[in-house]
């Protein structure tokens, strides 16, 4: 089980830049053919500075952030996900990101961990991704 004193733990702040190619690769996997993700001109015509990052993409940012509290033998299930945006995220822009472990709730052999991934552009918070994971521990 994860110690509840870890509530409030944060990752380091990491700079993340997503390339157009990474967006396009993601879009191919989810069969997203909207030209705003594949052609810069289409993106600019629709009002974006460059190719936008799809709204569900930021959970991939977790790969660049270390969350040591999740290193356990538990089975991990994603139970809830929320994205909130002030502005869309754009490829080739560099964002500063960190994850905060916001809450831990324990019920039997399960723990519900609420995380907030904060995304900043020049110190202004522009997007948040909230991820609730359920950790199921083997009962002894």
């Amino acid at each position, binding site marked *: 089980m994860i110690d509840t004193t870890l509530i409030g733990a944060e990752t380091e702040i990491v700079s993340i830049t997503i390339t157009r190619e990474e967006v396009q690769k993601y879009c191919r996997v989810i069969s*997203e053919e*909207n030209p705003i993700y594949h052609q810069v001109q289409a993106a600019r015509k629709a009002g974006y500075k460059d190719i936008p990052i799809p709204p569900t993409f930021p959970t991939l940012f*977790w790969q660049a952030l270390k969350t040591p509290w999740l290193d356990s033998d538990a089975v991990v*299930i*994603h139970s809830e996900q929320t*994205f909130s*945006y002030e502005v869309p995220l754009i490829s080739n822009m560099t964002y500063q990101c960190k994850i905060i472990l916001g809450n831990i709730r324990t019920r039997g052999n399960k723990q519900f961990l609420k995380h907030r991934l904060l995304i900043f552009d020049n110190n202004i918070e522009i997007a948040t991704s909230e991820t609730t994971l359920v950790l*199921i521990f083997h009962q002894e």
Partner: protein
Amino acid sequence: MESFPKTMEIVITNKMIRQYAAISGDVNPIHFSKTAAKKAGFPNQVAHGMLTMALSTIFISPLLQRQWRVVYFRIKFSSPLFIDDRLTIQATMMNHSEEELSFKISGNNQHNAPIIQGQIKLKKCTESKPPV
């Protein structure tokens, strides 16, 4: 404005799960191995929840070409989706104004069991409030 509700049916293949694992870095064996999935208490290989959520953005995608921007998107994953399951996702418009749109998103498997439920909100960007 397209007509809603809209419905989409998709079968979750091994290829989709493998491709999503590759881009997301989520290489938990429950996604690849039936044995590992069973050991963890599931009947078959589990699809990534985020794959399902990402697929459900297809409904609102055309709006992103026309001044609309996603400001909020929430999904609750009610039950896992497994390899070869057929997912039916539906988007229903809840509110529609000049500046804001909201949709209810729901997805069921082939047994009509709820898989995902949630809400997506979009706002219109204007010249006084540029998008980016």
